[in-house]
């Protein structure tokens, strides 16, 4: 066990840190579309420096970074308060699924343009009736000349209106559950694809709905075998960003720093109740960081395991508790909605839903880690 960075890791960290220091794009625009353009430009900057796909193997244009290096990179990005690259879904999900399950043609066709940000990706898994139960998708794929026609509705896709490609699951046969789905890469720039923004409780539209009405996907854009989409999707969902736990812990630490300031401003830094609620948040943040690093060590021994669910559950409830404390200490200002903390309070409610609800995460821990019997 060694919790210090090796000389190589330190060099890597210093390199990233120095580069971010030089190349940080400055404050992000508030407006959603401008913000996206800003992040697209940022991805190009990262790409030119060779940082867009540090986790990707060198043969696909990545840097082949170790797990620890990926964690370091993620942490440095958070520390510098640098924006996420625009094509994040392509980088962490689309690219990896093509590398793992795609044909050589598909790799040539897709990978480079994901890295460069020339083609943006979105993800179409969730549907109105397929939330936690992802396998119950209703979107249908019908056989057509040279490919498939897709019809149905997907929800909770981010930046669908800017995306070129949508990875989606559709029902390609009437076969048994889990054996009737195919994994498609669908061109978003065609008739038969309609994107509508989905307004969230924060007032923003981070996400969209997509309506497919006979949209065409050629055979060459099927990933893996027909009717084998569920297994591929499952693998896709297991692609974790190593060190995500540590990076999100760091993001929360930065916010806890703000919260400490808010507590002091409101003269509550002597209030034992506020102090201990705050300290518990610090403790929880630190355990997320440590659990994240420990998960990294395990991931190094093979495929990342279901233990990621631990960090996901903790992060959601910590974010919710932190924003509630901030709300409790700010007095009358809590009536107003145009504060960072008001936004965070509302946004945090989604943390226990997005990316697998906390209930689903607990199912995973119970069934896959603790080997408890499943409910049939």
């Amino acid at each position, binding site marked *: 066990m060694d919790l210090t960075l090796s000389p190589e890791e330190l060099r890597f960290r210093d390199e990233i840190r120095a580069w971010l220091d030089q190349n940080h794009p400055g404050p992000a625009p508030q407006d959603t579309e401008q913000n996206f353009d800003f992040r697209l430009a940022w991805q190009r900057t990262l790409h030119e420096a060779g940082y867009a796909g540090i986790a990707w193997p060198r043969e696909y244009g990545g840097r082949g970074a170790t797990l620890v290096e990926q964690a370091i990179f993620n942490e440095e990005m958070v520390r510098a308060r640098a924006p996420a690259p625009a094509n994040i879904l392509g980088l962490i999900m689309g690219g990896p699924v093509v590398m793992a399950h795609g044909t050589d043609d598909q790799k040539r066709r897709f990978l480079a343009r994901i890295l460069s940000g020339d083609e943006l990706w979105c993800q179409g898994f969730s549907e109105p009736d397929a939330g*936690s139960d992802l396998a119950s998708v209703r979107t249908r794929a019908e056989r057509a000349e040279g490919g498939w026609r897709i019809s149905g509705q997907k929800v909770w896709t981010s930046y669908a209106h800017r995306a070129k490609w949508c990875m989606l699951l559709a029902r390609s046969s009437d076969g048994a559950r889990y054996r009737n789905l195919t994994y498609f890469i669908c061109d978003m720039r065609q008739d038969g694809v309609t994107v509508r923004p989905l307004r969230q*409780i924060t007032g923003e539209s981070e996400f969209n709905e997509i309506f497919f009405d006979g949209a065409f996907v050629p055979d060459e854009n099927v990933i893996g075998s027909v009717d084998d989409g569920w297994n591929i999707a499952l693998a896709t969902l297991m692609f974790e960003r190593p060190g995500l736990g540590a990076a999100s812990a760091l993001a929360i630490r930065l916010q806890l720093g703000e919260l400490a300031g808010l507590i002091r401003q409101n003269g509550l830094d002597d209030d034992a109740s506020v102090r201990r609620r705050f300290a518990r948040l610090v403790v929880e943040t630190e355990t997320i960081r440590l659990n994240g690093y420990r998960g990294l060590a395990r991931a190094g021994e093979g495929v990342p395991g279901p233990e990621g669910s631990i960090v996901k559950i903790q992060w959601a409830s910590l974010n919710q508790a932190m924003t509630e404390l901030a709300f409790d200490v700010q007095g009358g200002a809590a009536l107003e909605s145009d504060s960072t903390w008001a936004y965070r309070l509302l946004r945090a*409610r989604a943390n226990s839903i997005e990316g697998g*609800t906390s209930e689903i995460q607990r199912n995973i821990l119970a069934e896959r880690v603790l080997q408890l019997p499943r409910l049939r």
Partner: protein
Amino acid sequence: MRFDLNDEQRAIKDAIREVCDARASRGEGAETDGAFWSELAKSGWTQMAVPQEFGGQGSGLLELSLVLEEMGRALVGGAYLGHAAAAVLIAASGDEQQRPRWLPGLATADGRAALGQAHNGGALLVDASGAALAVIAGPETAAVLDPVPGALNEAASLDVTRTLHRVESAGAERLRGDVDRGLDRAEVLLAAELVGVAQRAMELAVEHASNRQQFGRPIGAYQAVSHRCADMLVQVESARSAVLSAAWTADHEPEQLPFAASVAKVTAASAAWQVAAASLQVHGGMGFTWEYPIHRYLRRAAAGARLLRSVDHHLDRIADQNGLGAEAVAAGAVQPAYAVP
């Protein structure tokens, strides 16, 4: 000893529910809704909180609480809370000069009053556009701002069913009577509204859990969901018991009100937020969309819980009243101050 509504109280509850449901069924725009206010005024609902000697109906706090719970449940008539709270504040905390000066106006159709919260040297007024006057509450003060200035500085309101404005409070006149008495009565009305918020948030969760299918079952059949709903019920019913008791206490045993009002505010504020948040979770992604109503309840709960005095303020008062106050320490008391009937 009967902890249930009498026929008259039930009739009030049924009547206002009908009014509120009808308004809610007409859809959005329920906030600061002049037409609805006129409808309420015409039927006399807005006069309930004004004592009879000043031209109002002089209803009990219990009856007012029933009205407010229904308004919270349907999320309509948001301005009613401020008006009723202002009326009970002036009636309970104004002196002999102040009460006849302001209360008669509050019994008239265009004499709407708003509630405000002292904040950063000024005040934040809730639903103040069109209000004739406002009562600005601080942790230990209450003051009447008369008139509400014509030009108001709008602030972004977390509670999207209510407007928020910033004003200077320099010209406000402090209520010179027993301020705590008025604040406690206003807290009970606020708590009643929050019970309605929690109630409806729970109903929405139960409805969704009964219908939404995942993995071949309605999600309400899973204990992760059903036990969460059961916990909502515990919170809602506890808060309702506390509010009914506090309202009755205000009307009949006012010397016990400080404890009862604090219990009502603490339980209702906690219930509204926790039930609304849990209900959103039960709804999954759908609960996170703007179009679905749950976030309006969540916002009302978050803001409402922080109107008037904070939950921590009430908890501290409860500790003082129950053996951890300076007097208790001096007297070496072991028994709680509070007496069971």
